[in-house]
Structures are given as structure tokens and as C-alpha cells.
């Protein structure tokens, strides 16, 4: 875990200065950047809080959909779109780089009982993100 942190306090500090210190932001001194690289690492940091460690999702008053054995992952554009745009309570993960998002989607498509081995490239992610811009 420690390896995922990169020295970048100045950058983080800048980001906080622009947004101000609201109730829902990291501590007023900013957060040491968390920089997961592999698809598994990105999943553990950003996704498993809702979709759970095994990708099985969960249910309460509402539900988090399962990513395990999810036929929608057959089309790579679908998960890229969902992660880039968000849906309902799920935010858009703009802080993820094209590379991180590509690693993540490639990981999802080859784990949790999904078998779509064709890897997703950062260029594909970039192109789809560009097409979403107003």
C-alpha cells in the first residue's frame, strides 16, 4: 500500500486551495496522493467499497450491482462509460488517468468470473472520454 503513495504534496495542496475546505473534502492540509497502478490496485482503492472484494455487489435499501459474471462487461465501452460518467449515487471518477481506467477495466473483464481477455488500452479510454465532453 505504501508504494502507491507518490510525493506530490505541492500538487495536492494546490487542489485543496482551489476547492476550499468543505465538509466533504479531505483534511485541510490535503491528502497524500494515492496512486494505484494495476487494475487490482485501482479496484481495491476505488471500487470494492461498494462492489465488494469479490465483485459480488451488495443490497440494502438500494443495491450495488454485481460486477462478477456480468455480461455487460463484454462490451468494454460500457464499463469505461460507467466509470467515466458515473450513475446515480456513483460518482464519475475523473481523477483516474486513462491508463488507470484501462487497467481497471481490463482487470474487471478478466476477473470475478468474467472472461473477456481482449485488453483495453489507454487510447480507447481517452477517445471515449473525449467523445463524452460537451
Amino acid at each position, binding site marked *: 500500500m505504501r508504494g502507491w503513495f507518490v510525493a506530490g504534496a505541492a500538487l495536492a495542496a494546490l487542489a485543496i486551495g482551489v476547492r476550499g*475546505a468543505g*465538509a*466533504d473534502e479531505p*483534511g*485541510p*492540509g490535503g491528502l497524500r496522493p494515492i496512486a494505484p497502478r494495476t487494475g487490482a490496485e485501482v479496484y481495491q482503492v476505488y*471500487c470494492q467499497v461498494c462492489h465488494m472484494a469479490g465483485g459480488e455487489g451488495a443490497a440494502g*435499501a438500494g443495491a*450495488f450491482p454485481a460486477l462478477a459474471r456480468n455480461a455487460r462487461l463484454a462490451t468494454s465501452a460500457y464499463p469505461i462509460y460507467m466509470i467515466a460518467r458515473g450513475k446515480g*449515487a456513483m460518482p464519475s471518477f475523473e481523477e483516474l488517468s486513462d491508463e488507470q481506467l484501462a487497467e481497471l477495466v481490463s482487470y474487471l473483464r478478466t476477473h470475478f468470473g468474467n472472461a473477456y481477455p481482449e485488453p483495453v488500452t489507454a487510447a480507447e479510454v481517452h477517445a471515449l472520454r473525449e467523445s463524452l465532453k460537451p
Partner: protein
Amino acid sequence: MNEGGGPLTRRRLMQAVGLIGGTAALYNMMTVFGHAAETRFDGPPNLSGARKGTRVMVLGAGLAGMLAAYELRKAGYEVKILEYQKRAGGRAWSLYGGDRFTEMGGATQEVRFAKGNYLNPGPWRIPHHHRTLLHYCKAFGVALEPFIQLNHNTYIHSTEAFGGAPQRYRALAADFNGNIAELLGKAMNQQALDAPLTAEDLDRLKEALRSWGLLDADMRYRSGPRASRARGWALPPGGGVDGAPKPSEVLPFDEVLKSGIWGSLAFFMNHEFQTTMFQPVGGMQKIGDAFARQVEGLVIHEAKVTRLMQDAGGVTATYTDLATGTEKTHRADFCVCTIPLSVLSQIETNLSEKKTAAIQAVPYNASVKIGLEMRRRFWEQDYEIFGGHSFTNQEIGLISYPNSGFFSDGPAVLLGAFANGAAGYRLGGLSPEARIEAALAQGEVFHPDSYRKEFLSGASVAWSRAPWVLGCCARWNEDTRREHYQTLVALEDRIVLAGEHASYVGCWMEGALLSSLDAITRLHKRALEA
């Protein structure tokens, strides 16, 4: 700062202040000029003339829903509340010893805190200007006590400064201000600041810098008694023959900047985080309980709403009775829906397409709070810290010390983490046991000799996994506000939405209450027209 090379006007000075102190410093300057206002509350609503027998269903027994029910019943309406949980109070909640909490995914925590100790997983502090909440706390008999928001004796920690050694807030604050004052003083001497500030203005500014920044006669910020009176002494003043104090050494300015102290200075200037702040005696749950007493008998618990439909004659909610697993319906003339958007966006309704799009448009925060019970109050006994927060740039964000029971023996509960953003996602994704370990590993930087040694037990809430809300609170931005906010709050025939998500005081209890009062006032008007 003076990029244009033109004369330094007041406006430019304010821009400079904004650059140095961050947006909150600028905001603070604006309040000086009277541009910032308090939240709005004109007293309880006047809902006179309600037609006898008109039925209102309220969805959700959080503060917004219970206030709506309380005021509407008082006005003469027949009210019922449908609530998913066994308890009322919504996010106004505390975890006490003996409580059991199962999060989404199935992980269950048994809270083992000593009697009287608690964790406030959600709201935990009340600004003195949140007048609606303060009004109803008084009306409903909730005892409040001070919440120690700003404590100069707490720590600031950054992995990027001072080799990772925490520094006292008061020292960093004094050193930051002193260096800024010295720099501005130098700029003045170089005539970088000239007309249209008059010579008198510049004299005043110089005196202000000397006084505020603790500068010496030569406008320098130096180690010595003057700085030590703010930042603390190496040897504090005493009595008798050895009473003379020894001044402390100021810290290197480059390290002070790296510490991010200016972020904390700006944080405390934020209107919502200014002293005086309050908390309920005995935990935030006391507010939930007090509201619940006012609507006793009106709440149908364990009702999971699955469908919400309105027609020309009324509103029908379909819900699963979680106690029996049976499907039921509830019918009323009108509906106040306080279900969080994270959940409402998954419920079938026949609301308009525009309204549905607004409900779908707002993501939720993923905050995590972790409570750590310690065998003794070592932060008071060994560090002279009484309440307040020590901040860090690690995932936990801060640790916060209890605001009551000072000097008492026995165990006390620290807030061991208030994680947001990426840190909230990551800590929330851990098992409850792993969250506690992360909180200990990161928090011990402040109190290395006692943190693990005195630790007894912990409890955590990852809001994304709270089964009844699926997130902490609504996260609007300027774009979504512009596109969807008015649609979201508009009364749509017989249904009106309320809650913190339907306010501009988002993530605060005050927002939930102001939204509720506004919603029922409009609903009442609609009911009279029916």
C-alpha cells in the same frame, strides 16, 4: 502577486490575500465587508387552515422526515412515516457499547465501548449559526455542550514536512503568519505596494503586519520572546528564581509551507467551522431520539419502499415489510419524500422524466469514520490536549479528541479517522478489522508511545456501506445545481422531496431541516388548493 505590474489597489490586496491564505481567507475578508450571510430561519412554519382528514405520508424518519411529520401533524394533517430502519434519526446517529452494526456486504461489528462512550459516525458538530437545528434542539429538550473546534495545542502532521514529525498548530500558525508578514513588509519597502494605497494606508498596513505577524522593530520575524508568546516557549514562564522563560526557535519557512498549515488556517476561517460549535450531550443520537419522541406512534419501521406512484386522487407507496417479508401498500393524499437520492434513484416512480433525471444526477460521498476507545486520556494527561483535531495528510485525515468528560479516569473514545475522497473509498473498502489497523498505524504518528498501548477496541462506519443510505451525503457541483436543483426541489403535483440533498446547506442537519420546512410550506399551500 502583482502580475499586471499596475498599482496595488484594495481589490488587488484582496486577491493577494486570497492567493496567500486560500479561498477561505478571501471569504473571511469578504465577511468583513458584509458579503456573507447566516443560514435562514424565521421560526416554525405557520401552516394554518389545514383541511381535516387530509393524509400525508412521509418517507424516511431522519431529521427532515420527522420535522415534516411533526409540523404537519401539529397543523392538523394525518401523518404516517415509512422508515427502512428499526431506528429513527437517520444520520443523526451514534454507536454505543452493546450496539451491533451490519454493513452492506454482511460484515458485522459488535461495539464494545464502555458505558457513556460513543462514536458519532455522521454529523458531529453544530455551527452556532445553524439556527433551525438549535431552535428544535431547545424545543425538543436536547442538551448541547461546546464542541472544541479550534485547539491551538493540537498537531499538524505531513509526511512531506519536518521529516514526518508532527508540529503544534500554534507554532506553525505563528510561523506562517510571521513569515508572510515579513515578506509583505519587504514588498512594501521595495515600493511594490504603492498608490492608490495612501501613505496613511501603508503605515497602517505596516503596523498591522508588525502586530499580526509578531515582527520585530526591523520588520523581521525571528525567534525570541515576541514570537514565543504565540508559538509557545522552549521553557515556559515559571515562578521564583528560575522563572524566566526560554524562547523557542522558529521553524524553517520552507518546511512550514510544506506542512500545509495554511490549509488548516483557512479551514478554521470557513463560516461553517468557526467557533462556537456545539454537540449534543451523550451523542448525536440524542437529536435523533428527541425528534423521534415528537412523532411517536407515527412511524412504520422496517418498511423498504419499492415503488412510489401518484395519480389524480393521491399517492401510493408500495413497500416490503422487512419483519415479515410481505409486500404492503400505503395510500395518502400527499407525500413528503426524504429518501436519500442514492436510494430513491433505484425506486420505481411515475415522476416526470426531468425529475427522474435530477434524482439520478447527484453522486454521494464515501466518508469513513472510525472510533477508537483508549484505556485512558493520554492526550490530556501526557500532551495537554483537550478537544480539537490533529490533522494529517494520511488517509485518516485527522484524529479528534473528545469534547467532554475532561480530566476523567477510565476509557474514552477518540475519533481515529474522518476519511474522504479517495481515502474514504479505500478505507471503506477494507474489512472493519483492517480499518481499525489502518487507523492505529496512521494515528500513532501523533502519540507514538501510547496509541497502540492504550487501545481497547474500535468501531467504524463506511457510509457507502450503510444499508439505509448507501453514501454519506449528496455531492452537488455548480453544473448539477444549475441543471437539476430547481427541478429536484419543485413540488410535482402531490409529491415533494426534502432532505440535505434538497438544500444549499448540503451534508449538514441544518440543510435537512431548512429543506423540510420549505417543502411542507409549499405542500400545505398545494393541499389548500386541492
